[in-house]
């Protein structure tokens, strides 16, 4: 439908470089199924100034958005210096994803094995039966919990033999050694039942009133089966929850990573700066701070040191330099919300330059300005793009900005 088409090439020498700085290959951008840009091919060499013109169907803005990653293209690629503007799968990503997976898995497992009961079994029970809080004891009780072993607990002066999670009380004894012995017998029976059919041990207890005591079997067939089952039950619960949580965490973090791969900040870090059609500045920051933020970001990225250790004096000097270069020195300490449209545009350009970009995208700078301001801004852009900085300007017609460019691309409907 639309096609990039070279209409004017003034400087042939510039086009002869081997790898163009920005190369757009069969780029298609769609809006609700309607292609705004259809299979665009465009190479921008280093240091050239390119103007992009269309008849106002939003294709220019879509192209800039696709380059800087605000809008994802439906097909085709944008390469800067031969690299796609996408975050790669680094070792950091790998460890991050793995760590998240394990963490979520552990959280799920903690919920599934009932962390509350685990705490009771490992921490509280040791205090109740007066065992010292040593790593060996903790390990023993932890193992006991995950093997669903029986344990001895105390309530109101009585020693009770309980399941590991303390839900079921199997017997009550008056003194500790007796309780321990009974617990060991019961545990032996349970362990035997785990490996084979086992036999119901002859463990009985006195019930009934004092005159007519009766003996009652403590472990019957069903209880024994349940207790024997406990180990596999808790293991199954824990492991299945861990695996589910691990996969969930893995999937979630991978999805998040995938969605954040092609974002404006990735493009910005690679060296793509842009300004917006309606200037977007930080209104509640002064002009100075507006630029300082960007300077700090670029210094921080280059130095790869921690936040507080970046060179403050250097940042301030660079900021002042930039403010002077766009002619906002008088306005340095007024809020960005108080600036005129022209000054806001200058501020935006200065903020873009603060990142030391390789390519500067300027979206419709002519909009909302009289011709005098347009000329002033055009000469400013020409000045800042003297060196190797590449400039892409969009425009809706012939204006001073297309004049400073050495190439004009028309996105015209065929």
């Amino acid at each position, binding site marked *: 439908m639309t096609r990039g088409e070279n209409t004017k090439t003034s400087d042939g020498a510039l086009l002869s470089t081997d790898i163009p700085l920005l190369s757009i290959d069969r780029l298609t951008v769609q809006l609700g199924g309607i292609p705004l840009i259809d299979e665009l091919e465009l190479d921008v060499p280093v240091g050239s100034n390119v103007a992009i013109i269309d008849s106002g169907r939003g294709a220019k803005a879509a192209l800039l958005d696709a380059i800087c990653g605000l809008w994802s293209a439906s097909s085709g690629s944008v390469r800067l210096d031969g690299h796609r503007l996408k975050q790669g799968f680094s070792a950091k990503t790998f460890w991050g994803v793995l760590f998240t997976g394990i963490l979520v898995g552990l959280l799920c497992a903690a919920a599934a094995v009932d962390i*509350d009961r685990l705490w009771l079994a490992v*921490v509280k029970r040791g205090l109740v039966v007066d065992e010292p809080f040593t790593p060996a004891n903790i390990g023993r009780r932890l193992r006991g919990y995950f093997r669903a072993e029986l344990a001895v607990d105390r309530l109101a002066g009585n020693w009770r033999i309980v399941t590991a999670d303390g839900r079921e009380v199997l017997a009550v004894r008056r003194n500790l050694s007796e309780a321990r012995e009974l617990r060991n017998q019961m545990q032996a029976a349970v362990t035997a039942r785990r490996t084979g059919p086992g036999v119901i041990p002859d463990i009985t207890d006195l019930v009934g009133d004092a005159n007519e005591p009766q003996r009652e079997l403590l472990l019957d067939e069903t209880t024994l089966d349940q207790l024997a089952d406990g180990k596999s039950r808790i293991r199954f619960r824990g492991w299945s929850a861990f695996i589910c949580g691990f996969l969930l965490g893995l999937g979630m973090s991978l999805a998040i990573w995938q969605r954040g791969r092609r974002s404006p900040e990735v493009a910005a870090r690679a060296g793509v700066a842009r300004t917006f059609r309606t200037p*977007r500045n930080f209104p509640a920051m002064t002009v100075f701070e507006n630029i300082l933020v960007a300077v700090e*970001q670029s210094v*921080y990225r280059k130095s790869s040191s921690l936040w507080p250790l970046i060179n403050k004096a250097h940042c301030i000097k660079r900021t002042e330099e930039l403010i002077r270069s766009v002619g906002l020195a008088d306005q340095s300490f007024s809020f960005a919300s108080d600036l005129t449209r022209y000054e806001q545009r200058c501020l935006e350009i200065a903020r873009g330059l603060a990142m030391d970009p390789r390519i500067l995208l300027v979206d419709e700078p002519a909009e909302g300005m009289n011709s005098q301001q347009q000329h002033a801004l055009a000469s400013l852009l020409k000045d800042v793009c003297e060196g190797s900085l590449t400039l892409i300007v969009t425009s809706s017609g012939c204006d001073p900005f297309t004049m400073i460019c050495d190439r004009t691309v028309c996105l015209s409907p065929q």
Partner: protein
Amino acid sequence: MKSQRASLSHFVKWSKKNWEIPVFTILALAPWFYPVLAGGLGRQMTSVLIICIAALGLNVMVGFTGLLHLGIASFFGLGGLFLAILTVPMNPLEIGFLPAVFVSVGLTAAIGTLLGSPTLRLRGEYLAIVTLGFGEVVRVLFLNLENVTGGTQGLGPIPPPGSGMLVMGIDLGREFVVDSRWFYYLSLIVLFVVVLLVRVLERSPLGRAWIAVREEPLAAATIGISATKVRLSAFTIAAAIAGLAGCLSVASIGTTGDPNAFGFNRSVAILCAVIIGGLGSIPGTLVGVTILFGFDIVVIPSVDSWMQRMQGQLFDVSIFTLGSWRLALVGIALIIVMRFRPVGLIPSRRFAAEFQESQQ
């Protein structure tokens, strides 16, 4: 005369810029001139100061980064809970106060990071809903994990800081329990440190990045600021500061108390205090908390006891108590402040500029 006036105006200017120094000097000297602070009033003042700390944490999130956070009280509660678990004699860990504070603040910050990393990609109301839900989850967990948290009764008694430590023949732990001025000073010092910390953060590159992301996320992204990371740092710092406040709170009360105190109501009350005081403004936050919680914790009980005495003399029974109307009064105050001073009582310079722009 003229030079005096000049020096006075100079002093006023200076104290406007460095308001912390006179304010904290007055607060530090108050117990000397007003010995009542050694008793119950001191305890009430201490809890106001502690909530000031939590509110400063919330201010980092809501004021500087512009994200609505409806679950700050849950981080407050988590900090307190971790401190209690680490120090109460019921549990075998029983580590000292200072390491316990460090560990619990670290754990609270880690939980903040954990909650923040998947959810901070949400904007506005969605994030508010997530934090609201998290607050409820924490409250219900507190109630249901009875073996860990003590359920509705809470964990206690938490030994006071420096218990068993003898300094010049004074048992510090005993002093902390007997004289409420000790906790008053401890909270005051921590509040001072947190105020300085937040101030330094606000003026650091990170603080500027927070504000940039709040103002214009798109422009911030085009200069390479990763909004998620920047927001996550604010979320974590807010959680850590709130956790610190929670540690102080449970230590001064001596128990974690009823978990329902860490629920939605507390979160919203702190948020209201921050909004009344002025979003993004440190002195504003302190003033907001002092007005809202000072009214709730200090003024209402004393007015009520006075009124009961008066009414008892007149009618033999007490008819009217301010306490039952306090939430209505807070609501009315909020409406009035928002009507006549929508930027808050002491707005930050930035917020005033932003508000002005949005009005245009």
